[in-house]
């Protein structure tokens, strides 16, 4: 109690009571916007308003129309993320085949594109078994604990200018805190499997997640410091001034590399895939899993990879922005920014750019997986604690100094 929250007085019933008395900030009374316009630079398409108007045209009341709208973005995002994860498994097979001079999946659909579908069908119809002498409750709970936080984190990922489920003011911090739940699931999987390789894998996974979370958070903090906001929308808008030149990757090259390395380690990708190192640990914490529970781990890991790639794109590569700002192109062509067809093109371009950047990074991750060897566990922890952590601290300090020295370029 005493050390849990230094800012909360023990005799003070309501949190932030004192704070709200002293200052009179303009409180935003509007509810969190769902796929609605969150920025005031160029409004773009407001899907929510148009959808509700459309339904009201069919004779529904405003409340009912809004209630119909509410679950839509979440369902769409969950479906889209599943598809994105499946596509990344296909990409993994194809790129690995190319790296090893094979053809890879070929006969299932065009270019073997139906392989993920076959995978899912197979895993769904397999017998859902729990091995003897496991702890059945924890054994079933663990994949969910790994899977749910990943999908929940997509709440804050903007796929386009107005295509985000909710523009929370804690933004990326939500992702960082949610991704810290996963180690508990991994430990649970390792423990409940009642298998020494599983336990070792789970412990390694947890150690790895914890060690690389700190450089990850610190490099995010440097970006947040420059954009003065944790919200992903604000972070992208701050990179929108001069097209490719204003992307954070030029201002945060060290942060970009640290973030990418740490994100790969968080996803347990190849140079850092110690928790499931086949030669040492069979398959780590997933050894005992099969069928749907294994699918949850598998889908969770690929969704996490897609999430990390999307967040690198959002934090460092300008999110949905085109390398040349669309407003500049429009003014060259003499088209008003509020023209409907231009808005449609801008919106489409936003989604395409976000996915293009994310999949480019994903491609690099897959290529890395099939080119570099695995590091040892002591090398991994050395890299995390003795190299990345100090470097990210220096990067943070440097960013703060540059922000004070050149407030124009570093978002003062």
């Amino acid at each position, binding site marked *: 109690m005493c050390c849990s*929250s230094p*800012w909360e007085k023990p005799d003070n019933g*309501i949190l932030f009571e004192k704070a709200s008395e002293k200052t009179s*900030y303009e*409180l935003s009374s509007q509810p969190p916007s769902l796929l609605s316009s969150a920025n005031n630079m160029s409004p773009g398409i407001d899907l929510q308003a148009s959808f509700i108007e459309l339904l009201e045209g069919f004779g529904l009341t405003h409340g009912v129309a809004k209630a119909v709208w509410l679950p839509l973005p979440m369902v769409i995002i969950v479906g889209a993320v599943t598809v994105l994860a499946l596509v990344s498994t296909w990409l993994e097979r194809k790129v690995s085949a190319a790296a090893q001079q094979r053809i890879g999946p070929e006969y299932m659909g065009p270019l073997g594109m139906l392989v993920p579908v076959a995978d899912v069908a197979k895993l769904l119809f397999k017998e859902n078994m729990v091995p003897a002498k496991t702890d059945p409750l924890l054994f079933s709970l663990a994949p969910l604990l790994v899977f749910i936080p990943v999908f929940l984190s997509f709440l804050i990922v903007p796929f386009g200018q107005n295509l985000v489920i909710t523009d929370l003011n804690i933004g990326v*911090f939500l992702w960082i*805190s949610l991704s*810290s739940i996963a180690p508990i699931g991994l430990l649970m999987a390792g423990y409940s499997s009642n298998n020494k390789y599983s336990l070792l894998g789970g412990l390694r996974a*947890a150690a790895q997640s914890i060690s690389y979370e700190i450089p990850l958070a610190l490099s995010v903090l440097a970006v947040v410091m420059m954009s003065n906001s944790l919200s992903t929308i604000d972070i992208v808008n701050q990179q929108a001034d001069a097209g490719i030149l204003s992307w954070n990757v030029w201002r945060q090259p060290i942060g970009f590399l640290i973030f990418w390395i740490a994100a790969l380690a968080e996803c347990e990708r190849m140079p850092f895939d110690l928790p499931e190192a086949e030669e040492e640990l069979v398959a780590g914490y997933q050894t005992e899993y099969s069928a749907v529970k294994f699918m949850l781990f598998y889908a969770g890991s690929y969704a996490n990879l897609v999430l990390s790639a999307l967040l690198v794109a959002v934090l460092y590569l300008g999110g949905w922005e085109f390398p040349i700002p669309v407003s500049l192109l429009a003014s060259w062509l003499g088209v008003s920014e509020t023209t409907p067809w231009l808005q449609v093109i801008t919106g489409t371009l936003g989604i395409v750019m976000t996915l293009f950047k994310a999949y480019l990074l994903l491609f690099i991750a897959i290529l890395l997986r099939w080119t570099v060897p695995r590091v040892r566990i002591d090398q991994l922890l050395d890299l995390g604690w003795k190299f990345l952590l100090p470097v990210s601290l220096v990067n943070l300090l440097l960013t703060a100094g540059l922000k004070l020295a050149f407030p124009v370029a570093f978002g003062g």
Partner: protein
Amino acid sequence: MNLADGVQLVSFLVLAAMMIGAALGVVLLSNIVYSAFLLGLVFISMSGMYILLNAGFVAAAQILIYVGAVNVLILFGIMLVNKREDFVPIKNAWVNQVATAVVCLGLFALLSTMVLATPWAISSATPIGDMAIVEIGKHFFSDYLLPFELASVLLLMAMIGAIVLARRDYLPDELLTSERRDEPSALTLPERPRELISSNKK
């Protein structure tokens, strides 16, 4: 009561039930690993309470620090300690348990009377909501600077302690069996004696 209030009430009830149930589980279950996992559930429901109080940042920080760091380290501690020991069943264990129960119930009664008797000053101001991060930052570097710095010193002390504990040299087992079999070592790990580094060494 409109929809929002109903949702709030229901989620409060669910969170409260979850928190109390999980907390009782932490205390009452005999399997320590279950207790540790349930502790995570307690922390998560606590963060849900913060969300109901319009403190999103505190809720996320609660998950990051308590679930992601503290609870994982507790689990780590439990899973890495591999000291199997056959505990002798204690005679009259129920006396111990009854005494614990009485003390806990007494504390509970004391705290509940305190909670009910205190005239809480309930502020009528709107919750600060989205501006909370800025406010917390300002408080950290103005009137709560000292507690903030003290907390970091505390963490530094804990870290140094952990390093000192982790860097001990253990004696290998075969050496142990030949030399110091006679020493009682229920709660201590056999450790090679170290010379302390003195500061005034010439």
